[in-house]
């Protein structure tokens, strides 16, 4: 990231944009086909690294959402609901294979629409999305072993609202278990990143998925609200901010809708003095700078034992000097663009507040491109537990460094947050890992690693990070009615 001439400067290595055809405009995917919205409005989706308009996308109003829910209901009571589980599994396997077959296309589209580096969409987002479909496909004819009685039943029509940070991956976390369990879905992707969901709709057509099993309605908050409040939606699944999660919980209170919420986080990444330091530094970098910090389980609070503070911080600063920020389509880029202007402004506001609170701000020497939305990797030291940057979710490439002296203090500080989604522990001492895992109030505790995702492992939060789990046997429970009672 240093701007001076280096002996071994990597020449540009851009992935080809021609791998994907972006249509000038997209309709809604309802009942197995693309349709125009009832009231004809649309919005633009742009590439955050260049601010170029990529496509016009339909904005679904309440009538469109109703049409999509009705299509989903027809599929649920019709072909999908009647289908044998082993047949249903074949469709989910087929979607998994199609994601693999069209992986490069999906990766390029994700990077263009989201701003994340192609290395991440190619090596993490798309392969993990395929893995979720493969894993859940295996569940379809084995639901009797989910621990929910001999013959658990699907819930019905699922209304699913997903965020912009991992558009295709969050889609797969939602759609794969829903379909495997026998539900039908109406999914609303985020308004800044609708394109991979719309390409996934084409995959559904290619897989000959019965019409209405998957419906995709694009739009902003109002569309999402219409979906979760629709009376014929049986199950709501949401990933996003805690504020919206609370609004959804209020909106569906008193109904018999089932709900899972995966909300914000302020994870502690805890480094003990006997940690493998080089790998811990990689874990810190991966914890907060992966996907520009747009990760709900990001390790945004580094808790480092005072006895290794200097060593860890020196190593971290040196490492950050090697991060390559720039064109997300370049295969050597480590840090891409911030997803939207609104998000960039929120990151700026919170980092300014951090400085005002007296924390010391540091970034490596770093040239930001002129076009697009960019924020340099940033480290705050001298952060008090009471500072806003230690308390609030920034959802950007900003790390707050705090210190501790004893394991008890580490646990107390790590848990002292309204959130509880994830945590990381770095130590070579196995017994301490187990002790910490039992004390930390977080849905996921990573030991000597961070931000690792696997479809077999349940993911979800404590406290204001939400409830319900996604992935694994526990994740299947969110889409099934128990026949035990």
């Amino acid at each position, binding site marked *: 990231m240093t701007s001076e001439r280096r002996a*071994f400067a*990597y020449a540009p290595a851009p992935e080809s944009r021609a791998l994907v055809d972006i249509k000038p405009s997209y309709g809604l995917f309802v009942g197995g086909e693309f349709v125009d919205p009832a009231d004809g409005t649309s919005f633009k989706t742009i590439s955050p690294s260049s601010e170029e308009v990529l496509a016009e996308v339909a904005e679904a109003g309440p009538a469109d959402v109703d049409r999509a829910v009705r299509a989903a209901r027809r599929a649920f009571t019709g072909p999908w609901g009647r289908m044998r589980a082993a047949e249903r599994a074949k469709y989910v396997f087929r979607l998994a294979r199609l994601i693999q077959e069209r992986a490069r296309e999906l990766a390029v589209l994700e990077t263009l629409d989201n701003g994340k580096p192609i290395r991440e969409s190619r090596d993490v987002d798309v392969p993990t999305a395929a893995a979720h479909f493969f894993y859940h496909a295996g569940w379809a004819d084995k639901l009797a072993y989910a621990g929910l009685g001999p013959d658990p039943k699907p819930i019905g029509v699922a209304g699913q609202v997903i965020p912009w940070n991992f558009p295709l991956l969050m889609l797969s976390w939602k759609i794969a278990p829903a379909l495997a369990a026998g539900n039908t879905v109406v999914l609303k992707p985020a308004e800044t990143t609708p394109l991979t969901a719309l390409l996934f709709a084409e995959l559904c057509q290619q897989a000959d998925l019965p019409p209405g099993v998957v419906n995709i309605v694009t739009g902003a908050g109002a569309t999402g609200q219409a979906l979760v409040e629709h009376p014929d939606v049986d199950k709501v699944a949401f990933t996003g901010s805690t504020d919206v999660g609370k609004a959804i919980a209020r909106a569906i209170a008193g109904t018999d809708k089932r709900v899972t919420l995966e909300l914000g986080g302020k994870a502690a990444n805890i480094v003990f003095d006997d940690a493998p*330091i*080089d790998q811990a530094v990689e874990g810190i970098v991966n914890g907060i700078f992966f996907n520009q910090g747009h990760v709900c389980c990001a390790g945004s609070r580094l808790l480092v034992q005072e006895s290794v503070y200097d*060593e860890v911080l020196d190593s971290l600063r040196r490492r950050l000097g090697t991060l390559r920020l720039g064109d997300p389509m370049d*295969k050597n880029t480590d840090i891409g663009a911030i997803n939207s202007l609104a998000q960039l402004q929120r990151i700026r506001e919170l980092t300014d507040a951090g400085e005002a609170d007296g924390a010391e701000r540091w970034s490596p020497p770093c040239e930001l491109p002129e076009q697009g939305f960019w924020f340099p990797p940033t480290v705050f030291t001298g952060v008090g537990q009471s500072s806003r940057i230690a308390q609030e979710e920034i959802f950007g490439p900003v790390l707050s460094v705090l210190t501790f002296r004893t394991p008890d203090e580490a646990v107390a500080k790590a848990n002292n947050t309204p959130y509880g989604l994830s945590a990381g522990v770095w130590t070579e001492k196995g017994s301490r890992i187990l002790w910490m895992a039992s004390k930390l109030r977080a849905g996921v505790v990573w030991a*000597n690693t961070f931000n690792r995702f696997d479809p077999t492992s349940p993911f979800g939060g404590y406290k204001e990070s939400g409830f319900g789990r996604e992935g694994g046997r526990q994740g299947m429970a969110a889409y099934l009615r128990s026949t035990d009672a």
Partner: protein
Amino acid sequence: MTTAALPDVARDDATLRAFLHGLPGVDKVGAEARAATLATRSIKTTSKRWAIDMAISMIDLTTLEGADTAGKVRNLCAKARRPDPADASAPQVAAVCVYGDMVQTAVAALTGTGIQVAAVATAFPSGRASLAVKLADTKDAVAAGADEIDMVIDRGAFLSGRYLQVYDEIVAVKQACGPAHLKVILETGELATYDNVRRAAWLAMLAGGDFIKTSTGKINPAATAPVLLVMLEAVRDFRSTTGRVIGVKPAGGIRTSKDAIKQLVLVNETVGDEWLTPRLFRIGASTLLNDLLQQRQKLTTGHYSGPDYVTLD
């Protein structure tokens, strides 16, 4: 690690052991993941050209066979001087690496070229001989004109925890080298863990090695990316602790241009481009050179030639 000079950590076995075991551990999964991520760097066009020539100039062109003859060594030296007969712009390699009895032949063939003659010594590759024999082996190669000595550590002593013995041997060999540069082969394929690789690297540097080298080439696995990563981290930390700059030489199993370029990326992003010079980074190889030359021809002409368009030796 502070920047203050190290106290005399090799004053006795217990102190040396405490120091080596006090180095931060290496998490296997994390180290391998980091090496795998760096292996995805895409080196194209001008940077590929630069990397290929840099890699050629870093090669210790090696023949270490029982069947070696003076003729074979002379051929190798000719190849070292002029790797691509059809293209004088191809750089010459850094050194020719041979057994001790071939040093005179190599020296005679390379005088005045600037190409170093490196000799393996100390009962290479096993290191199973008395210290007296190892020192005689070393002195013999130096007397014959070797500029560099590639020694092996006593892995048996290392694995049984006799660190001071390993240390003392390296110190003695370094002394026997006189003006010759000493490369210390850790034979990482026999050390079993990355923690051991890090400890052996520090041991070799503390004892006065000028270079640390991964492998003899006679054992698999040899110069894997995570092993190289751990050794590069060790020279980086050793420099910040002592101020001394140590070279690194991966050897064994590096056959393709892609492998070599991945190693240069590891150097670039772990210790920095200060190490991207034959003075501080060498690649021990034999077949690698021809693959680099074919890639080089491809960049020049735009098409691949074939194995018959580069010379065997």
